[in-house]
């Protein structure tokens, strides 16, 4: 089995976990930079998936399963630019798929995608299914990369019908060690929001991401099918206002015309990545249906959206207005009132 993008925390965790599965003989981790975390018994091969050398790695190790996780929104560490991320996402996927197409041993391909391929617009239906066409295609950034990556993957699936292809569209991934732009956003002391909009958000827990990737990379269990495209998200939704209250971080509403300006100002000082697609998500929100994930893929997430969020919130420490303190204040007020009445 070959896993790309292993220098990331999440991929590293997946590599460490998948080795313990009995079906897996060997795991080869690939990335352009060596990972900081250990990969267990997995072999690390330093290779840039943007170069044709990746085909040699596939042939040399007689890889049968490829898990493509190097589709990401942000550069790793500091110093990486958006251009290089885009190149890794798009050119890297093209090279990897080209290599897979030539390889006679590859039988299974799993691609980590994102629900951001649906975009977020006021004219979209409230809940997206796997087949909903987006009203306005993402115009740039990671969402566009993901759309293009999925396009290449569909082309590959047509050319190699013998390879089982599974595309997993993950909702926003949260958990104790999440390093996504949204996790950075929720770590700000005050949350800038778009005035007059309260987006619905959906989260999926890191542990569930690892589990669903394992289901997708093995042979399907009885009565399930693990090739195709699946939305992966925890049950239920949280609105941004609920998130901020549960985190105990106050919000600062910003008027929509000023949002891009504030966003770029924050990005310049390096606080967090406020890409236009991130702003659109935080304006209109996005919710997906997960019936396919449950019924076809046979995966039941352990964490609901709210549970994934509270696990994340616990790992981030209290905000300026901790919900417990607010609850205590209200309780004190109510005892005061009832005493007065008696």
């Amino acid at each position, binding site marked *: 089995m070959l896993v790309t993008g292993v220098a990331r925390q999440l991929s590293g965790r997946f590599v460490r976990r998948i080795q313990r599965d009995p079906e897996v003989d060997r795991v080869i981790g690939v990335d352009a930079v060596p990972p900081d975390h250990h990969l267990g018994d997995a072999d690390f091969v330093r290779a840039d998936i943007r170069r044709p050398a990746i085909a040699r790695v596939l042939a040399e190790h007689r890889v049968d399963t490829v898990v493509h996780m190097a589709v990401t929104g942000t550069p790793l560490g500091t110093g990486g630019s958006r251009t290089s991320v885009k190149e890794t996402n798009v050119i890297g996927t093209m090279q990897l798929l080209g290599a897979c197409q030539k390889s006679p041993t590859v039988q299974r391909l799993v691609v980590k995608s994102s629900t951001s391929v649906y975009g977020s617009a006021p004219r979209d239906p409230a809940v997206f299914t796997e087949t909903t066409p987006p009203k306005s295609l993402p115009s740039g950034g990671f969402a566009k990369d993901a759309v293009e990556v999925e396009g290449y993957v569909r082309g590959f699936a047509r050319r190699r019908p013998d390879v089982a292809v599974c595309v997993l569209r993950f909702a926003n991934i949260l958990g104790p060690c999440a390093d996504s732009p949204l996790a950075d956003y929720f770590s700000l002391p005050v949350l800038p929001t778009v005035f007059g909009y309260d987006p619905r958000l959906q989260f999926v827990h890191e542990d569930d991401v690892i589990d669903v990737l394992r289901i997708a990379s093995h042979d399907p269990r009885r009565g399930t099918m693990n090739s195709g495209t699946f939305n992966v998200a925890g049950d239920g939704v949280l609105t941004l206002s609920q998130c901020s209250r*549960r985190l105990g971080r106050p919000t600062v509403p910003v008027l929509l015309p000023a949002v891009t300006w504030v966003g770029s100002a924050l990005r310049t000082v390096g606080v967090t990545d406020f890409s236009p697609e991130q702003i659109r998500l935080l304006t209109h929100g996005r919710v997906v249906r997960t019936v396919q994930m449950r019924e076809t893929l046979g995966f039941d997430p352990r964490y609901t959206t709210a549970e994934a969020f509270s696990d994340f919130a616990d790992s981030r420490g209290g905000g300026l207005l901790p919900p417990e303190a607010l609850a205590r204040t209200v309780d004190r007020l109510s005892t005061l009132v009832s005493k007065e009445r008696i």
Partner: protein
Amino acid sequence: MTPKEPKAGPGGGGGWDRRIAGGLAFLRRRLTGDYEVDEFGYDEELTDKVLMSMIRPLYEKYFRVEVKGIENIPSEGGALIVANHSGTLPLDGLMLQAAVHDNHPAGRNLRLLAADLVFMLPVVNELARKAGHTLACAEDAEELLRRGEVVGVMPEGFKGIGKPFGERYKLQRFGRGGFVSTALRAGAPIVPCSIVGAEEIYPMIGNARTLARVLGIPYFPITPTFPWLGPLGAVPLPTKWTIQFGEPIPTEGYPAEAAEDPMLMFNLTDQVREQIQHTLYKLLVQRRSVFF
């Protein structure tokens, strides 16, 4: 924290205690984010406790809405309420929601389908989602009906709400009858609904088309008072309203491919439209005056 048992003390003191305790419990849940919204963003608690109390004075005191035939809305399972649309501003939708919310014995809540403009406007979109409204598209409507919700739709859309005063109570075209095929696919009955009184709240005597185009809205109303009196002109006239729910039209028993049959769709659409129009005329004849 559990609310205390109500005590019928002298002067209703127990009632007040209970209300304060209930209010504080509500405040506590809101402040800590400990409440639920559904996938469409519907916040049941906020709608029941806050939003409905905000429009109730308008519903009870200002328009004095009279509701007839509420028993035509089934107590359980999905149903599609199809109503006429009028009044320049979609107050009729809100009144319809309040009518179902406050009068239905099973305490059902209406899930309105709203135009995309609603979801583009700041504040409005937020409140609409929390009150349980969603975008008028087949996907959302079908999903809600399948979940057994009562869904409200006004198929005339902007044609109905933005029609001139001279055409009051004349139903406009009902789109392409998309609502019928949605109801058919979900197997939900269609409840026709006629609203009298909304047409006269803002008598639209003109439409500033150029201004509307510049502002990106479907019409810019000119009434005897708006925009001449400024914000004061935006106060609706205190008309007396009647909302009548008609006999439900069942959609079960059609074959699966019926939803794609255009002839059947047009026939059913016409049946619903005729019934609403007929009831409108009947209510208008019964009405003593616009304001009383």
